[in-house]
C-alpha cells in the first residue's frame, strides 16, 4: 500500500516537473500572462467596489464581506487553474485521440490525466485571490485562530475538488458527443457568477439547485456565511470545514467514475 502511494507520488511529481519545464521553454508567454491576468481581475474587483460604493450593499452584504466571499472563491479557482485546467481540454483530447498513449501505460488513465499538466500561469490567479482574500480579512477583522485557519484550508481544498470535478463531469460529455466546449463555457460563466456573489441575490430555487444538484454553493457561499455570520437561507448542522471537503471528495469520486464511463466510449482518432 505504502509502496503504491510512493509510486504514484513519484510519477505525479515527475509529470509536474516535466510540465513546468515545458512551460519555461517559452518565457514570453508566461510574462505576458503575468501582466494580463491581474489587470483583468483588478478591473473586476474595482468595478465591484464602485458598484457597492455608489449604489448599495449587494443583497445585504457590505463591500468587505463581498470581497471576503470573492477571495475564498477566487483562491479555489486559482488552485484549480494550477492543478486541473486540463479538464477544459477533454474535448480536444478526445478529438485528437490523445488518450491513446495514456491507455497504453500501466496506470489509471484518470490518474495520468489528472497529473499530466500543472499550469504555472495559474499561480497568477492564486496570487490575485490571495491578495483579495487577505485584504478582505483585514477589513472584516478576521480572527486568525487555529480553528479558522483549518476551516479556510479545508474549504479551499474542498472547493478546488468541487470545481475541478464539475469540469471533469461536464467536459467528459465529449466522450459521447465529441463536443463539450459550449457546456464548458456555460459552466465557467455559471461558476464565476455564483461563487463571487452572495447566493441570496438569486431566487431560492436557484440556490437549492446549486446546493443539492451541482454543489457550487459549498465552494464559497456557505463557508463565507458561516464565518461572517450571515443568513444563508439553508441551514446545515455541523460546520463547513466538514461539508466542503467531504462534498469535494465525493464529487471527485463521481468525476472519476463518470470519466471512466466515458472512456469506454472513446473511439481514438484515425491516423
Amino acid at each position, binding site marked *: 500500500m505504502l509502496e503504491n502511494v510512493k509510486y504514484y507520488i513519484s*510519477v505525479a511529481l515527475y509529470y509536474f516537473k516535466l510540465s513546468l*519545464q515545458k512551460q519555461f521553454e517559452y518565457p514570453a508567454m508566461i510574462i505576458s500572462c503575468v501582466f494580463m491576468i491581474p489587470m483583468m481581475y483588478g478591473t473586476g474587483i474595482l468595478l465591484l467596489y464602485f458598484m457597492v460604493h455608489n449604489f448599495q450593499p449587494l443583497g445585504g452584504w457590505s463591500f468587505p464581506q463581498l470581497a471576503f466571499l470573492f477571495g475564498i472563491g477566487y483562491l479555489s479557482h486559482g488552485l484549480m487553474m494550477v492543478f486541473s485546467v486540463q479538464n477544459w481540454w477533454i474535448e480536444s483530447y478526445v478529438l485528437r*485521440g490523445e488518450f491513446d498513449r495514456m*491507455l497504453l*501505460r*500501466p496506470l489509471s488513465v484518470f490518474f495520468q490525466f489528472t497529473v499530466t499538466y500543472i499550469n504555472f500561469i495559474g499561480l497568477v490567479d492564486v496570487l490575485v485571490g490571495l491578495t483579495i482574500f487577505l485584504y478582505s480579512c483585514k477589513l472584516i477583522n478576521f480572527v486568525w485562530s487555529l480553528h479558522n485557519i483549518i476551516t479556510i484550508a479545508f474549504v479551499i481544498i474542498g472547493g478546488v475538488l468541487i470545481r475541478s470535478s464539475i469540469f471533469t463531469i461536464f467536459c467528459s460529455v465529449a466522450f459521447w458527443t465529441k463536443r463539450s466546449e459550449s457546456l464548458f463555457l456555460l459552466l465557467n460563466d455559471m461558476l464565476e457568477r455564483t461563487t463571487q456573489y452572495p447566493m441570496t441575490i438569486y431566487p431560492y430555487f436557484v440556490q437549492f439547485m446549486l446546493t443539492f444538484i451541482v454543489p457550487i454553493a459549498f465552494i464559497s457561499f456557505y463557508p463565507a456565511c458561516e464565518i461572517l455570520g450571515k443568513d444563508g437561507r439553508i441551514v446545515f448542522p455541523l460546520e463547513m470545514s466538514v461539508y466542503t471537503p467531504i462534498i469535494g471528495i465525493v464529487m471527485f469520486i463521481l468525476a472519476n467514475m463518470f470519466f471512466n464511463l466515458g472512456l469506454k466510449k472513446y*473511439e*481514438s482518432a484515425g*491516423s
Partner: protein
Amino acid sequence: MAFLEVENLVKEFTVTKKKEGLKGAVSSLFHPEKYKVRAVDNISFNIEQGEIVGFIGPNGAGKSTAVKMMTGILHPTMGSVKINGISPHKNRKAVVGKLGVVFGQRTQLYWDLRLGETFELLKRIYKIDDKMYKDNIKMLDEVLNITEIIDTPVRQLSLGQRMRGDLAAAMLHSPTMLFLDEPTIGLDIEAKHSIRNFIKQINERCGTTVILTTHDLGDVEELCKRLIVINHGKIVEDGPLNSIIERMAPYRYLVVELASPHHNLFHPAAEVVKTETLRVWFKFDKSRIAATELISDLSKTYPIRDVSVKEPDIEDMIMEIYKKPVIF
C-alpha cells in the same frame, strides 16, 4: 496456447451521414441518418512468441483499428484479444505493462524537452530499476545510437532521429511484444535501414514479438517471415511471404530483347504487358506454359538476342490483392 490470440474481432463505428448545405445540416440535426461501418470485420489469427508479422493493406483497410484493439486502446464491438492469455480489455494494466507501441505518425516524446526526460518519466511509470534502465540504454545505444541524441530537445530532432527516440522509448521497459504502426513512414533510405536493423536486432537479442503495419514493401521483404494482408476489414491472406506471392501472383515475366525493332509480337499463351523499342515483357502463367517452351516458340518467329525470366515481386502481389473485389 499462442502468445497473441485474436478471435472473431469486429469493430463497428456509427457514422452520421451529413447532408449537403445548410438545409441538409438542419435536417441532419433533427433526423440524423446513422449507419454502421465495419472497420474490422471478423478477423482471427494467432501469433507465436518471437515472430515478426507484417500487417499490410491499403489506407483505410482497418490495420490501425485492429492494432488499436490488440493494444487495448479500442474496445471491440465483438470478439476477443488475448495476449499471453490475458485480455487487454478486461485487464488493461496487466497487459500494457508488457507492450511497446509506436505510432509512426504520432510521438510519445515530450516535444519541447530533451529526449532523456521522456525516458526518465517512462522509467518511473514502468518501475524500471536502475540496473535494467542502464542495461537497456546500453543495448539501445548499440542498435540505435541513442546516446548521441539523448540530450537534444525532441523538436530539434530530424524525423529519423525522432523515430529512433520513439522506438527506444517503447523498448525501455523490455516489452515482450512490440506493435509498430508505420514505423518507417516518411523516412529516408538510411533511416529506414537503421530502423529495420533495430527491429531485427531486438527480435534476435530479446526475442521480442513484433507486429508491424507498413506500406513499405522493403520493410516486409527484409523483416517479415509472415504476412497478414487485410483489406476492407477482412483478412485476405495470411502466411509466409513466398507462398502468398506464389498463390496471388502465379505468373512469371519473360523479358525478350530483340535484335531489331519489331511490332505486334504475339503468343497465344502469353500476354504482352510492356514494350520498349527493343524490349518486350511477356506475362505468362507457368502452369499453362513452361518458360522454355515459350522461349523456343518466340525464337522461331522473332529475331531474339537475349531473354530473362523475372519472378513477380511483392509489389505485384499487393497490386493483385488490392485489385481483387471483395466478396461479402
